[in-house]
């Protein structure tokens, strides 16, 4: 078999493969972008139930959206923040009021915790603790006892690390957002 034949065969296969892929990609990429946008929108309004409109804020390294209701009144912010969980990354959408001192609710967007244990962070008994929580000065995790103060969250039995991770991620996201806000105000 001649070398030229080998080169020709591989070249032709490569060209045809590349060509057909670009055709498929042209068709698929707008649809994929649309899907991703729909997913983000769904998540933004999950933590602000009355939200109808939103705009993305340009803050360095943070994914923050300002959410408005039907008549254009500001409801607060939706902040996407991620950090390490027990087994992998946890990505959380945090809903905040305008003054950043009350959490409306949180929604876990991505996680890879242990099924049945760590995944309880997705379930209402844990998740709903964040509704109306006052993260001042920061959220505290308590174990075994019911939360007494408005900034306390009870850990899940058997999933302390996952519970702690969620608290840490929310605290970290809040701290970053606050520092940016303060810097912005000083300017």
């Amino acid at each position, binding site marked *: *078999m001649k070398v030229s*034949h*080998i080169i020709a*065969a*591989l070249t032709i*296969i*490569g060209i045809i*493969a590349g060509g*057909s*892929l670009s055709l*498929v*990609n042209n*068709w*698929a*990429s707008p*649809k*994929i972008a649309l*899907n991703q946008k729909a*997913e983000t929108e769904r998540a933004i309004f999950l933590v602000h139930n009355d939200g109808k409109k939103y705009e993305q804020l340009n803050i360095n390294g943070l994914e923050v959206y300002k959410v408005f209701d039907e008549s254009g009144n500001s409801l607060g912010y939706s902040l996407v923040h991620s950090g390490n969980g027990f087994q992998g990354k946890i990505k959380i959408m945090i809903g905040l009021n305008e003054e950043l001192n009350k959490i409306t609710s949180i929604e876990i967007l991505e996680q890879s915790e*242990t*099924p*049945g*244990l760590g995944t309880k962070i997705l379930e209402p008994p844990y998740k709903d603790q964040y509704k109306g929580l006052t993260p001042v000065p920061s959220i505290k995790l308590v174990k075994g006892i019911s939360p007494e103060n408005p900034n306390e969250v009870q850990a899940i039995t058997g999933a302390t690390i996952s519970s702690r991770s969620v608290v840490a991620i929310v605290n970290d996201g809040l701290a970053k957002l606050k520092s940016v806000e303060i810097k912005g105000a000083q300017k």
Partner: protein
Amino acid sequence: MKKQVPLLKEFTKGLWEINPTFKQILGMCPTLAVTVSAINGIAMALATTFVLFFSSLLISLIRKLIPNQVRIASYIVIIATFVTIVDLVMKAQFPELSKALGPFIPLIVVNCIILGRAEAFASKNNPVRSMLDALGNGAGFLISLFVLGSIRELIGSRTILGFQILPNGFEPWLIMILPAGAFLTLGLMMGFANLYIEKKKNLERESLIAQYQRVGREEITDEVLKEAGV
């Protein structure tokens, strides 16, 4: 001259005789990883079958044009093209399913079933046979993944295809939806499959021996009779 296998046999052999999971033991990685639920198993198997079908067909069509030295490289490019198409289409049309299967769709490129069938079958047979072979192997893979996924979903979360089968009183076995559950279930399934094969073989052997003995005894009896006659 090679003996010609009937066309139907090219399809049906993939279902059990050379079943990718139980007989060829190929494609174990997706088999173990995605079968947390029956629907994931079905989606994975369908995506694999799609890629298997089209790459087998194409490879069989151009099998005489590809120089022998670069055949594996060519197969991989062809397979990767189809896998990328599947990945893009799933992301565009079925985003939920695509998210559930995660990185295992792009990993179909290195699924041994596809390269295995390309090298062992499609590169040596005509397109019609290659298509049937691909469909058969795909169907075999689908059956295995569906059964495996159903067992794990039933015991791990009480449902099959999302429909609740076991009552609420049944406490789901967490281990079944963890990786360990995949190994346990697959191991047991393979064990029972081998047990069945062994039993079938033994039965065949016994019937053969019985037949032989019957013939043998008759011959002996004849001789004995002759001798007795003489």
